[in-house]
């Protein structure tokens, strides 16, 4: 399984990268960590005319504090985020989720931005971005814009990125409250069959704010807005969370495949949603 032929370029600045991307658009492939792209090349599922290796673009790396929250460069390796004290402190949900991503060797090379831009609905980081109300900063030769996570993930492997745009940074606002990441996979490190991420902020004895996201239940990660609404200003309890979790999965239409049936995904999404809410609130 050898890759098809392509032109390989390794720009050293962001401007260079943007110029090449503007020229080729979706005929080019952006190479971040390669953990998602290179299997597609080896399997001859992707046939880009040009592969743009972003590995030398230093402007895309780095983890910084920003407005009480975080700014993470798109090319930041997942292992770096996992080990970062700043990330652990300000966005522990990211670290919790990273533990489930593949294995050490994958996280050594895989990047935060690469996983987000790839937008696999069973992937952990898109769900986390949604749960943390992340803002995705994208750039092109035409300028820069910021896309809220709610608008970024469109469908299966599809984001709001235009053909000439690059994801350059993820901004995570300060998280108030507890968080929890739950997933069921066939084996340790596999893509999730189904998963849930929750952030719950308590105000005295009531739930001030809550975000609940489900993954593996459709073509993109799903924010359970209805369930969230049910829980605001309510006292946290096992029963309230169970009811909200049921509401979160009603009407979902996951796929069936050899790993799990649609019924399974829907049902267990509900279980994980409940578990995530309970743990986030504790």
């Amino acid at each position, binding site marked *: 399984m050898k890759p098809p032929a392509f032109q*390989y370029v390794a720009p050293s600045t962001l401007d260079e990268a943007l110029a090449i991307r503007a020229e080729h658009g979706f005929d080019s492939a952006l190479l971040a960590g390669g953990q998602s792209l290179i299997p597609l090349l080896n399997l001859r599922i992707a046939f880009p005319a040009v592969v743009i290796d972003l590995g030398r673009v230093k402007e895309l790396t780095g983890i910084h504090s920003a407005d009480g929250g975080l700014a993470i460069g798109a090319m930041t390796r997942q292992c770096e985020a996992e080990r970062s004290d700043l990330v652990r402190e300000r966005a522990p949900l990211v670290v919790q989720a990273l533990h489930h991503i593949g294995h050490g060797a994958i996280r050594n090379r895989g990047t935060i931005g690469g996983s987000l831009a790839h937008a696999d609905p069973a992937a952990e980081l898109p769900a986390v971005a949604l749960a943390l109300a992340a803002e995705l900063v994208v750039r092109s030769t035409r300028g820069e814009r910021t896309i809220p996570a709610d608008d970024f993930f469109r469908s299966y492997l599809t984001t709001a990125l235009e053909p000439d745009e690059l994801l350059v940074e993820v901004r995570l606002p300060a998280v108030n409250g507890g968080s929890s990441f739950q997933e069921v996979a066939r084996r340790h490190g596999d893509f999730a069959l189904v998963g849930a991420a929750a952030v719950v902020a308590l105000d005295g004895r009531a739930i001030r704010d809550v975000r609940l996201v489900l993954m593996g239940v459709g073509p993109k990660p799903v924010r359970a807005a209805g369930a969230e609404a049910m829980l605001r200003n309510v006292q946290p309890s096992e029963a309230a969370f169970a009811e909200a979790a049921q509401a979160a999965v009603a009407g979902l239409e996951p796929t069936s495949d050899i790993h799990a049936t649609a019924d399974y995904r829907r049902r267990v999404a509900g279980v994980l949603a409940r578990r995530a809410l309970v743990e986030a609130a504790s």
Partner: protein
Amino acid sequence: MTIHIDVTVNGTRHSVAADPRKTLADFLRDDLGLTGTHLGCEHGVCGACTVLLDGGSARSCLTLIGQANGSEVMTIEGLSNGEALHPLQEAMRDSHGFQCGFCTPGFMMTAVELLRSNPKPTEAEVREAISGNICRCTGYQSIIEGILLAAERG
């Protein structure tokens, strides 16, 4: 079309032209003749192709050669010093750590990374650290024992 690559492999610097669509694995095996790194799946699941890239374990089948430009790579061939085995290799042999040997180089490089960052791991930590490497022959126990033995011997 070729690109120019500068890469240090097992301490030796190579400055050569390479086909950019080659993975690091194919470059090591074909261009440098270092066939100790094996291909088991070419889609990043089995870990047989694991090498150390700038000190961190990486699946060489999921690395294009261009991405290794300017980097340092260590493969299984770089572990022993002439005929003298690395302590991890000795421990693996003493524990009967492998059978067909095809997955072994990948496990060894993963174990080198583990023991560098965690010189006295627990069995559970070893089990998790090697969970990205597949072995079809051993059921893993003898590999884990080999790594623990290496850790014990220091």
